[in-house]
């Protein structure tokens, strides 16, 4: 296991690369879902305002 983590001496490059990429993927998933949720909330708010003119 520790040999796997050492990555043949390239641990300092390989693991930060993985962390960066999967961090960006995670952020993109969060951001996309957040954007959909806020758009839905906005639509709901507008629909409510439209109901009682």
């Amino acid at each position, binding site marked *: 296991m520790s040999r*796997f983590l050492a*990555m*043949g*001496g*390239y641990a*300092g*490059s*390989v693991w*930060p*690369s*993985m962390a*960066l*990429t*999967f961090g*960006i*993927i995670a*952020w*993109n*998933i969060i*951001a*996309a*879902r957040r*954007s*959909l949720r*806020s*758009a*839905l909330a*906005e*639509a*709901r708010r*507008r*629909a*409510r305002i*439209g*109901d009682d003119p």
Partner: protein
Amino acid sequence: MDWTWFHRFGSPPHLYRLAGTLVPWFAWPAAILIAAGLYGGLVLAPPDYQQGDGFRIIYVHAPSAWLSLMAYTMMAVTAAIGLIWRMKAAHAVAASCAPVGAWFTVAALGTGMLWGKPMWGTYWAWDPRLTAELVLLFLYLGYIGLRSAIEDPQRADRASAVLAIVGVINVPIVRYSVEWWNSIHQAPSVMKFGKPSISWPMLTPLLIMFVGFTLLFAALVLVRVRAEILRRERQARWVTEMVTQ
């Protein structure tokens, strides 16, 4: 030729529902493929005979770089469709591609720099691919900036579409010119190692990663497309009916 599918695809409520149905069909295979590709790439693939285990960065670097280019092309194509057929849904797709593509450009740049440290001895060398990727990031930021600077959404769609089309003509020219520029300035000592020679046990996880990243991109864009459609259609009756149900 029957074109009804085209117009149905362009109808916002239809695309909104279709995107919602499709998201899990892209997201779960993407998760499985990326996990499999990662296992194959980090554990099963043998170390490269020149770069040792350092070459394993390719399993996240190359798919990110591929997405950064594919997203830009897709953005320009859908923007052109939106401009020519005045199709709101196509503009929504173009707008959704931009942030995702920009983030994967950052990923490609970052992993490229981390790969450069052991291979070139420095985080940043003016390597043609890295330089072209950096210019691509600027193109993305310009597109996103222009879109956010124009208040009227319809005008923002159409203006940024023109920019995306001009940009996509420029991308191969930038790529070629940067390579040419590099070939005349290249210091011969920069590359410590040659390109990794790829064998099947190395290549298979990479191909799996390419497919996985592409599916992930599709899922991310579909979620964003739904949000963009809602923002463009918030006055429409189908939206108010859907959210008040």
